[in-house]
């Protein structure tokens, strides 16, 4: 791709977006933040779809410290690693991920009610 760019020096590169680093994030690599009800008024928050390069354990450690909750990294057969946190931390997690620069605001999808 880069060769083509060099050969034809046009002002507008139609593939610029597609070649960009985070192109996939716009279309399908969403970070899904879900909530799940447990017994009583307890709930779980799951964070799925973070980039593979990140160390999930380190993120989890910070999340736990920040929100004062427990959590684990779950290994799922299809979805890879998923961060699980106790309690409804959807808002917290999304703001944290955006602030830390781990995910963009557009690529975060909050599910649940």
């Amino acid at each position, binding site marked *: 791709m880069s060769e083509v760019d060099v050969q034809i020096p046009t002002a507008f590169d139609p593939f610029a977006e597609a070649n960009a680093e985070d192109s996939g994030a716009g279309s399908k690599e969403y970070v*899904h933040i*879900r*909530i*799940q*009800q*447990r*017994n009583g008024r307890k709930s*779980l928050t*799951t964070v*799925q779809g973070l980039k593979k390069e990140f160390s999930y354990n380190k993120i989890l450690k910070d999340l736990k410290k920040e929100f004062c909750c427990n959590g684990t990294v*779950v290994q*799922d057969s299809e*979805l890879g690693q*998923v961060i*699980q946190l106790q309690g409804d931390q959807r808002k917290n997690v999304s703001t944290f991920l955006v602030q830390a620069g781990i995910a963009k605001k557009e690529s975060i999808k909050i*599910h*649940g*009610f």
Partner: protein
Amino acid sequence: MAEDNPNVDLKEEVAELAPFDPSKKKKKKKPVASSDLADDSLDKLTEKTESLSVSEGVENAFAGLKKKKKKPVEPDFLNEETGDAVEDLDDQIKEDEEGEGIVLQTRYPWEGTDRDYEYEELLGRVFNILRENNPELAGDRRRTVMRPPQVLREGTKKTVFVNFMDLCKTMHRQPEHVMNFLLAEMGTSGSLDGQQRLVVKGRFAPKNFEGILRRYVNEYVICNGCKSPDTILSKENRLFFLRCEQCGSGRSVAPIKAGFVARVGRRKAGT
């Protein structure tokens, strides 16, 4: 009627100090900005009587008194054809023109003059006519209204969504599709019961359902181009496509994925 007249006339004289142009046989309507409805109807009546008197040639007397400027034909025309809507319009126009001194109390601003029509005025005229004849075409986008979800609690752990079928019908969507979406978003399991109600495991408030349905409508019902909910969802070789019935545009929509569901509840010893 006779006793009403002087009353109104007095008011007008106070309110209206604009010089009257006798060459144009027009009477001015009294400023209705402060008057109420009853006054309005009264006004109509007086107009009628006055138009009669005008046609009898008492115009000069009126002119001396700084009477209403109004075309003699106007009131009848107003009353029989359009009624209140134009009445309002008239008032507005009149108020706009008040500053000019000489006020042509007419249905359209160009009446009585031989100037060219302005685009804005013609546009306004078209929309007024359209609104009178068939209001649904006048471009006021009607909001799609969905009834709020009715939710009951079944026991302590299950929630019943009573008017689930109704809502599916208003959205023109398959209940299975809507159900899949709801269950995936809420991360629980559920099913339709004998009366076609949706039973969901877990405790949910009506507001929760509403939020999720709103998201469903945005993603799977509303046309991106024209925002109309009149769309059809069809499946073509494993992909879902949304086609708009209003503007004919189409788009693909994401399939519903449940995502990760954590194990809650007690686990068996074996696993």
